[in-house]
């Protein structure tokens, strides 16, 4: 690999002097893998932010939204998504020891759940040193609604961002 630093003026001069080279660029074959790797961001349609915000964790099982009402989902409309990612950051000077569990359910055409309760997707304990990032992947996709709950014996604030990915296919 070689690179050189040039000014904008020099760059313009080179483009003007060598228009044939510029035209040839359009037909160069590129590797698909490189294309994906270099894509700086995905379109929002591929990856959607489902929720972001702050949760005040305490000894009760709370949704990331803060409620303790088990019937309420944390995120809805998640049918198209293969998997969800929850990235969080817990404030406080003590080591993080937060219990979490994830529920899911399906709804009918009117948005009414097919039945009572939820399906347990999984549960875990998030243990990190203080003020560290953590990330939880929820691989069981295409459910319509998820409820993500947390609790902590030591009250603390958790900042969260829940995103969902669809993946993509080539035409």
């Amino acid at each position, binding site marked *: *690999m*070689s*690179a*050189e*630093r*040039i*000014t*904008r003026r020099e*760059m313009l001069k*080179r483009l003007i002097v060598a228009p044939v*080279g510029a035209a*040839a*660029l359009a037909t*160069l074959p*590129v*590797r*698909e893998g*490189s*294309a*994906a790797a*270099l*894509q700086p961001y995905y*379109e929002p*349609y*591929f990856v959607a932010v489902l929720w972001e915000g702050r949760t005040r964790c305490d000894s009760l099982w709370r949704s990331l939204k803060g409620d303790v009402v088990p019937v309420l989902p944390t995120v809805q409309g998640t*049918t*198209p*998504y*293969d998997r969800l990612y929850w990235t969080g950051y817990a404030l406080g000077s003590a080591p993080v020891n937060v219990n979490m569990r994830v529920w*899911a*359910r*399906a*709804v*009918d*055409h009117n948005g009414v*759940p*097919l*039945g*009572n*309760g*939820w*399906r347990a997707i999984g549960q875990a304990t998030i243990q990190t040193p203080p003020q560290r990032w953590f990330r939880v992947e929820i691989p*069981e996709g*295409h*459910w*319509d609604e998820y409820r993500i709950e947390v609790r902590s014996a030591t009250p603390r604030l958790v900042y969260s961002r829940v995103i969902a990915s*669809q*993946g*993509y*296919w*080539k*035409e």
Partner: protein
Amino acid sequence: MPVRFLRNASELADVSWETPLPVQVANAKPVPADTLLVATTTVTTDANRDLLGSTSTELPTLDGCMQYRKLVWFYFRAGGDSTTYRVLARATDHNGAPLGTGWITLATGTLPGEANTWGRIEIPSAGDGYYDQYRIEVQRTAGSNYTLTSKIVGVR
């Protein structure tokens, strides 16, 4: 003569495996998922009863599924009575007529879950689907009738 491109605001780089051209995946589309079926089935001891309640073995539960790589069957069962299920599939011709009678059995087994629990079954469990028609049958093998509410999502 090496081909160069503007890697950032003021840097030219040679095209190479390490520094390929910065292109976007323009010819790609997101993978949609479509709801194909929402149905409530009374699970009985009848043989060959599908999610639509039909015992006519040549009738598909789902048709026109060729574009879907897989189906995801979500269900909520009101009863925990022992139940078996079968997932069948086949291909059709251009007129929508099956290439032959009968089906390929993709999966068979005991329907997981107790009373008032949720379940999720991927069809097929491994590999790709792309079959034209599916037939999903449930049969209770003990206990009493109960209702099974299902939703099937097709994933491309």
